[in-house]
């Protein structure tokens, strides 16, 4: 039995990342240097999906009061097998025990100036697939993330688009904060993704993983 198999997987804090993909940075372009941002980001831009957001396959995600459309962002979570503090890029992947598909559901907001608590922390807004053991031999950059709404592909992304690939991201994040065993760090989401509304069926397909299927429920009264 390895140490990794003793660790409860994916029961910790989930850290999300934005602006870790070249297309999102390119789309913002000159705006990154204008108000309110003033300069392009230097450190990884992180946010937290707290425990009330965590959900599993088959989840029904209800839009919060007054909302109708929800934004969908597909990503892959790195699930930590041990605590990682100030890891080097060369050693970073040793701390990863597993991978899991993550659908970050949010209220659309093109502005990323303030922490997205209203937008990204409503109940059930972080459906995740089961944790699959991490295979060091696999090439994450070769994975394609395909999002479907009612069967139609609405977004497709290859993980070759990352600004900081997994090991670099882990090194830059753990330089200032420990990721604990059971925590997960996503490889980042694309901004301004496709939207869905009540009744829509959403799925995230990644080769090698079971499709993560959810449904958008009725708006919260």
């Amino acid at each position, binding site marked *: 039995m390895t140490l990794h198999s003793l660790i409860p997987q994916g029961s910790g*804090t989930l850290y999300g990342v934005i602006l870790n993909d070249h297309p999102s940075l390119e789309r913002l372009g000159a705006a990154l240097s204008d108000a309110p*941002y003033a300069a392009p980001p230097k450190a990884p831009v992180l*946010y937290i999906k*707290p*425990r*009330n957001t965590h959900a599993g396959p088959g989840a029904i995600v209800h839009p919060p009061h007054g909302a109708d459309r929800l934004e969908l962002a597909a990503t892959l979570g790195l699930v930590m097998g041990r605590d990682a503090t100030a890891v080097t890029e060369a050693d970073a992947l040793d701390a990863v025990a597993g991978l899991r598909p993550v659908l970050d559901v949010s209220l659309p907001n093109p502005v990323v100036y303030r922490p997205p*608590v209203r937008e990204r*922390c409503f109940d059930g807004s972080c459906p995740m697939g089961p944790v699959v053991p991490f295979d060091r031999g696999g090439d994450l950059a070769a994975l394609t993330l395909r999002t479907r709404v009612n069967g139609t592909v609405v977004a497709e992304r290859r993980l070759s688009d990352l600004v900081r690939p997994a090991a670099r991201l882990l090194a830059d994040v753990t330089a200032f904060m420990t990721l*604990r065993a059971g925590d997960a760090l996503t490889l980042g989401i694309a901004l301004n993704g496709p939207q869905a509304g009540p009744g829509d069926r959403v799925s995230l397909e990644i080769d090698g993983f079971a499709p993560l299927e959810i449904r958008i429920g009725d708006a919260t009264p």
Partner: protein
Amino acid sequence: MKHARIRYEGTLHAATAATPEGEALRLADGRVIAADAVEAWLPPVEPGTIFALGLNYADHAKELAFKPPETPLVFLKGPNALTGHRATTTRPAGVAFMHYECELAVVIGQTARDVPRARAYEVVAGYSVANDYAIRDYLENYYRPNLRVKNRDGATPLGPWLVDAADVPNPMDLRLRTLVNGTETQSGSTRDMIFDVPHLIAYLSSLMTLSPGDVILTGTPDGLADVRPGDQVVTEIEGIGRLDNTIVGDR
């Protein structure tokens, strides 16, 4: 009652203050020990979701040259950020400005969803003192205040006590202050919060379900100063506790 989580004789214990000021503690097994005999103070709660408020005192908003916000400016922290009473917090090498923030911490005691302001105190388990350090050098305008500023390991001391809500008749009229090496550098009153505790609970529980163990750090008044390795920083709230911390340099 004042509750603590401590290490004594190498073992973790739940304890309560055995005297009003907490010079002695009663362990869950009945033993009474002197506060000086405590080997380590843990944060007094195992935290669930940790919320923190920016710019929640009008004077502090002005100090940072911001208009007071129209809705609460909320950000989240991970459990890595917390440390206990009498701990050390690291000032990274080469930074120009690291400041303390004395804050009233509210610990949620019940599952709470869409709680009206008038009933908000019913879901509070108790209160504690937090020191929400920030490294100003690392501020960037993406999801600001960003985690590199506010979610550093051990840079949010919490404690020493969780004081039962029943023992805090009016949390909105408590004096807060910070002392650096014995000199008072920050002082204010929870009376001056822009969004008071009932408003914050109503607001957060309108966005999401709160659960027992969730913690809300309610923001800080003005009076910020740079702190350096070796500085003894005490954040104190009337009736809640006195939280000691020492700044250390980067390895």
